């Protein structure tokens, strides 16, 4: 190998990281959380200790692992070739997340198109559930309490506006970064985080309202199941996204990233747009239609 690829005008060496103990630490953390989770769900409160220990270990692992990556990035280890890897990697990670949401959307559509209408069919009425009228929202034929479905044009509409605005502000921050206008970058990024936190706050308020005043709970039949699973899973993603944005904000304040080398920023921005788009799907199919 005396010749190499220099004639192709491409970076020659791909940076392969040195051995690290972080991955197995992450696995151990997940194992602790899983074992603790099983015990808590089955009524053994001691499981909380295992969940807590696992969670702390997970946070420590992420701080150290991401810390290594940030140091490597700021130390100039990553050129255009590695950058392209990160772009492919993040894109396909987001694709897998879309498929994860797809499973829960499938449950929603299945309930609305097949299972609830079927339960109200003539055969079903005659054989199993007399008098069950199929309409959406439905908590199923055996659900006997009253509940009020969540209206679209209150907090959910405001939340839509908040998330869409945060998509704009994160783009403005990106433009500022590319212009090397650090003041505007920090300003718009902080605004994005604030909008995200506000969204989470309103979502939490809405849950409280739903549980106390609307009698809408996770156990409110298929409507409650799909409502809380979809919005809860999305809310979890927004929370992760907001934490990621906060890390990027701190890094921006510390002077990380340059106008032409900032995939950490872009990857988080992509993720933020992804939770934004998922929310639009939620707003339309869970709240509105």
């Amino acid at each position, binding site marked *: 190998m005396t010749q190499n690829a220099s004639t192709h005008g491409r970076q020659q060496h791909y940076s392969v990281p040195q051995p690290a103990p972080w991955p197995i630490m992450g696995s151990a953390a997940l194992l602790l959380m899983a074992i603790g989770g099983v015990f808590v769900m089955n009524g053994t409160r001691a499981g909380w200790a295992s969940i807590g220990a696992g969670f702390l270990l997970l946070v420590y692992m992420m701080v150290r692992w991401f810390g290594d990556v940030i140091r490597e990035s700021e130390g100039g280890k990553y050129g255009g070739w590695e950058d392209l890897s990160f772009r492919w990697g993040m894109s396909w990670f987001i694709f897998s997340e879309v498929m994860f949401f797809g499973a829960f959307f499938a449950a929603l559509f299945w309930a609305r198109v097949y299972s609830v209408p079927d339960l109200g069919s003539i055969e079903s009425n005659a054989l199993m559930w007399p008098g069950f009228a199929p309409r959406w929202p439905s908590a*199923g034929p055996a659900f006997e309490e009253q509940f009020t479905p969540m209206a679209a044009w209150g907090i959910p509409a405001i939340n839509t506006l908040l998330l869409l605005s945060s998509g704009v502000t994160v783009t403005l921050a990106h433009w500022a970064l590319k212009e090397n206008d650090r003041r505007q970058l920090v300003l718009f990024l902080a605004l994005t985080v604030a909008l995200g936190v506000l969204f989470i706050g309103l979502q939490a308020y809405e849950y409280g309202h739903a549980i106390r005043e609307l009698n809408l709970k996770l156990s409110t039949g298929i409507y409650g199941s799909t409502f809380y699973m979809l919005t809860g899973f999305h809310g979890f993603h927004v929370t992760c996204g907001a934490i990621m944005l906060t890390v990027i904000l701190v890094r921006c304040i510390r002077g990380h990233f340059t106008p032409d080398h900032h995939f950490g920023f872009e990857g988080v921005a992509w993720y933020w747009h992804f939770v934004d788009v998922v929310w639009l799907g939620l707003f339309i199919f869970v709240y509105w239609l």
Partner: protein
Amino acid sequence: MSAVIDHDHAHGHHDHHGGYGGIMRWITTTNHKDIGTLYLWFSFLMFGVGGIMAVVIRAELFSPGLQFVNPDFFNQLTTMHGLIMIFGAIMPAFVGFANWQIPMMIGAPDMAFARLNNWSFWLLPFAATLLALSFLMPGGAPGVGWTMYAPLTVQMGMGMDFTIFAVHLLGMSSILGAINIITTILNLRAPGMTLLRMPLFVWTWLITAYLLLAVMPVLAGAVTMTLTDRHFGTTFFNAAGGGDPVLYQHIFWFFGHPEVYVVALPAFGVISQVIPAFSRKPLFGYASMVYATSAIAILSFIVWAHHMYTTGIPVSGQLFFMYATILIAVPTGVKVFNWVATMWKGSLSFETPMLFALGFLFMFTLGGFTGLVLALVPVDIQLQDTYYVVAHFHYVMVAGALFAAFAGIYFWLPKWTGKMYDETLGKIHFWLTLVFLNMIFFVQHFLGLAGMPRRIPDYPLMFETWNKISSLGAFGMGLAQLLFLYIVVKCIRSGAPAPQKPWEGADSLEWTHLPTPVPYHSFETPPVLH
């Protein structure tokens, strides 16, 4: 040349392992060859565990009546045998091949995300721990079948929850691995290694990785809904609350059918390397192989409900899924044709890898044909949940995927270890495996056609003869794999030194551009290809 492969001390070509030694080398490694080795040994361990379960199952079925295990434990064994063999043995085996081979075959320095690669592997032993723990819980491991259908899953004990979390970890491992493989193939190819010059093994893994990305999250969603149905009062799979147990089956099989090709496509890839090498001819119809693999992958997303003909779906749905399923025979037929055409007028020799590849070719095709039989709605209504189905998918999984894995091991072992395995013992291993495999599974076709249901520990006297033959085959098959372990250990410890290219007809980069045994770091600078 100076490499920037980023280790603590020296740089360049020596065989050092970064900053850690001993066991910590394996725990912290970011080297694709180390990680490939870990995958392969883990998969062999799980193959042993799942195999022992299979032997206990067959021991119970040796005679009618209940001998060794009670029906509940029997169900736990069939469930865990399926989960462990699919997620613990076969999938990790092919990811092990991917780790070893893809960077070497495309001229890359390592996998694109080397640390993440380590995590993809090290999630697996922890997931296996969760599965093992489920046996120790009150109520034992889940006895619901590997498909984990609702509403049975709602009735299980804590073991079910452990299994659900284990599936989450296994899914994470697969998704991270798939992202890594896609990025490596798309971004780390050496200059001149265009997509349509990649060895077919690399192509099959690229497509497999997309399948994994699309379906593993869906499985995670399915088991998550099972978990909330069990513990948090949701009613996704409960008709009383407006949900539907059939929904579970749809979501599961949307994962489950592509999963078959997750196992099969890398096997096709290995066979597509081995057959040309021992035919001393290039692969016949390379481009059509790529298209056929893609077509199989795409079709695999629209055939899932052929697992559900008797669940209760409209006739129009049955017809759609029947025709779509039969359509898969076309690209699969293209592949089988191309393998045979590669051998046509070739200069054939029959070393162990080629024997396993030929065994694959015959028996995988047989498994494909019984798949066509089962794809027909009226036939399947008779045969569903009988031993005919068991025979069918074991011809695909064992005679297909496992034979391809053996072919790949014997093919690449000289490259990896620098030493030759014992050819005579290899051939004995092949013939023993071939004979015992058919003893186990061929007779199960007759049992299924005669109406013996699967997942039942007892059966009427009329089924006894075939069951005895099948069980004897299983015991023999298990013993034959001890011979395999001996062959591998003997090769590593005292095999004769292997030349750079022990197989005359092999032509991918690991044979043509790298010494034997391959150095710890290969292609730190990309090779120049013409």
